[in-house]
């Protein structure tokens, strides 16, 4: 029972991260009908931005990597203060990484996706694959191909639960931050004028344009929002498992994408639900079945859901018009 509880909390915490990334996929698909394959790599960039920020701001404990060349450059650029590891530090690092990645997302949209928007969706898809390859290979050149170790942004400890179970405080922090971000997103999408414009664009781009919505701005905003969430996920993952490398986004990105499809692509609550389900199932398979099949789980779920309910759990079934 206690292990089950532990696994469940692990799964939810992992699932929350998948959800954050899945939200980016689903929002972009909503407005552009584009599977943004580069999204997983934006998440990777987010983790690396967190890494350099932590070094640049001089988070204690980050010094051991601060001696390396890029660590020193980051320090030089950011002044190299000294920060005690604390929750506030973690938040500052995460928010800055989010801001940088939002800019990265907008740049990608502006220079890669906007020029091909007038062509077929297939062209856009291949462009997305190109951007993904660019970020992965560029990341290997800029960040170095070898894995880096993310500094501890706040003191982690194990919290004893009843029945002998114990959970890591990092898991709880990750879960809480993810929850706050998702609530914030929900407020943006359903309570603001920009959010309403986003929903209008995703419902029908042409009509939204006719109603006077600047669709270019809304699409750019969607990319900014999605990329910021991916960056947050990147930092949160690095807090849980402090090992980051330029190819870390490929598999996680695919799984998050599966989560978005599972919940019903284009559907925001669906992405959150899908992420949690994938995270929990994956943790359970690792805990109780064969860990080597952990990567197959997400895809098996995906195939089942697509064969029996292609629109996803919360998606609406669209009628085909002749």
């Amino acid at each position: 029972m206690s292990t089950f509880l532990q696994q469940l909390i692990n799964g939810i915490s992992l699932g929350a991260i998948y959800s954050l990334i899945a939200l980016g996929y689903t929002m972009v698909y909503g407005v552009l009908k584009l599977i943004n394959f580069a999204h997983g790599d934006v998440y990777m960039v987010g983790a690396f931005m967190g890494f350099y920020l932590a070094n640049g701001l001089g988070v204690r404990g980050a010094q051991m990597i601060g001696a390396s060349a890029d660590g020193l450059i980051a320090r030089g650029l950011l002044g190299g203060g000294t920060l005690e590891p604390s929750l506030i530090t973690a938040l500052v690092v995460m928010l800055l990484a989010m801001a940088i990645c939002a800019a990265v997302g907008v740049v990608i949209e502006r220079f890669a996706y906007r020029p091909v928007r007038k062509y077929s969706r297939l062209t856009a898809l291949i462009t997305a694959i190109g951007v993904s390859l660019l970020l992965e290979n560029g990341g290997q050149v800029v960040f170095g191909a070898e894995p880096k170790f993310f500094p501890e942004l706040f003191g982690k400890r194990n919290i004893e639960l009843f029945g002998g179970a114990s959970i890591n405080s990092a898991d709880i922090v990750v879960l809480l931050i993810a929850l706050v971000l998702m609530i914030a997103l929900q407020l943006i999408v359903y309570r603001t004028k920009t959010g309403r414009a986003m929903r209008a664009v995703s419902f029908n781009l042409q009509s939204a344009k006719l109603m006077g919505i600047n669709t270019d701005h809304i699409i750019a905003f969607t990319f900014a929002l999605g990329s910021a969430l991916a960056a947050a996920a990147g930092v949160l993952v690095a807090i849980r498992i402090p090992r980051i490398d330029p190819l870390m986004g490929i598999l996680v990105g695919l799984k998050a994408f599966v989560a978005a499809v599972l919940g019903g692509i284009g559907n925001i609550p669906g992405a959150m639900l899908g992420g949690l389900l994938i995270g929990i199932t994956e943790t359970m398979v690792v805990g109780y079945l064969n860990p080597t099949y952990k990567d197959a789980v997400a895809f098996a779920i995906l195939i089942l859901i697509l064969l029996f309910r292609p629109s996803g759990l919360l998606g609406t079934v669209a009628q085909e018009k002749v």
Partner: protein
Amino acid sequence: MPRYLRNLIIALVVIAALIGLDFVFQGRMISPYFVRILMLSGIAITLAVSLNLINGFTGQFSIGHAGFMAVGAYSSAYFSVNYGVNFANSLGGGKLGWVVALGIATLIGAVAAGIAGLAVGIPSLRLRGDYLAIVTLGFGQIIVVFLNNIEAIGGARGYSGIPIVKSFFWIFLIAILTIVIVYNIVNSAFGRALISIREDELAAEAMGVNTTRYKVMAFAISSALAGAGGVLLAHFDGYLNPKSFEFIKSFEILIMIILGGLGSIVGSVLGAILLTVLPEALRGFAEYRMVIYSLLLIILMITRPQGLLGSTAALKNWRKRSKGGAKSPTSPTAKSPNPTTAATQPDGPIGGENPQ
């Protein structure tokens, strides 16, 4: 001269030419590096042309091609390691024995991949567009996970000890056969049915085309040919690793046919050669090689979205479908030579009547 006689003569001439070239390339007159790239191009042509059958001509967007390639590669490698050696030895163990053994291995790989294609195609070809793409991607990944876990074929360590048969003859025979098969299919009643599915699935169905049956058949044939390509790859380096069949490999083949132009066999051949040669040509840039490669890909998509030799029909159809069935007879198509006219049209690539 009767047609079959003419075809027979052409076939014999091609085979003789291939055997001749095989001998030329075995001698050290031509740089082995060049021969290697040439052979890799041949394998790439097999893969690209086979993928074009389902993606370009039938209009069904599959991105799990590497999975079928893996099925072909592994099944034939298993045969070669366990039975092929004896077989080749029973034929004298020389080059000839191995060439025959490789032929049998190719058959086994193609049949295994074809069966896998049937098994994946029957359930998933009910889906369309993005969803079909995602399902094929998923199946491709699942095949890789299984390969990682089957110890008899090396698991995650990779499958080594496969007899190396670098046969220029076989590689190009299979590549030419693939081109001939796909060409003949496309120019037959079967092919016209496939193209009608690409152009408008509903209309094709209304005209009495059994769309599911044709799609599944095209998918199985395409998978079988990909399997044959996998066989060649398995015996090229003598080592297989599940990692090399991840979805990145599928993307690579996909990029070849898009670059060459969907629905164009010549385009696929060019795309396959280009994408095999390009990374080699960029070797001088060392670590920036792949960065330049991906940048070139993006720039090519922006400047020439229909590919080098694209039939615009395939792209047009994707465009139409992406509009969710909205009718707009005046809408510009991807073939619009002047991008500004397309840009100023109020008709964007997405939207349409329903948000799906």
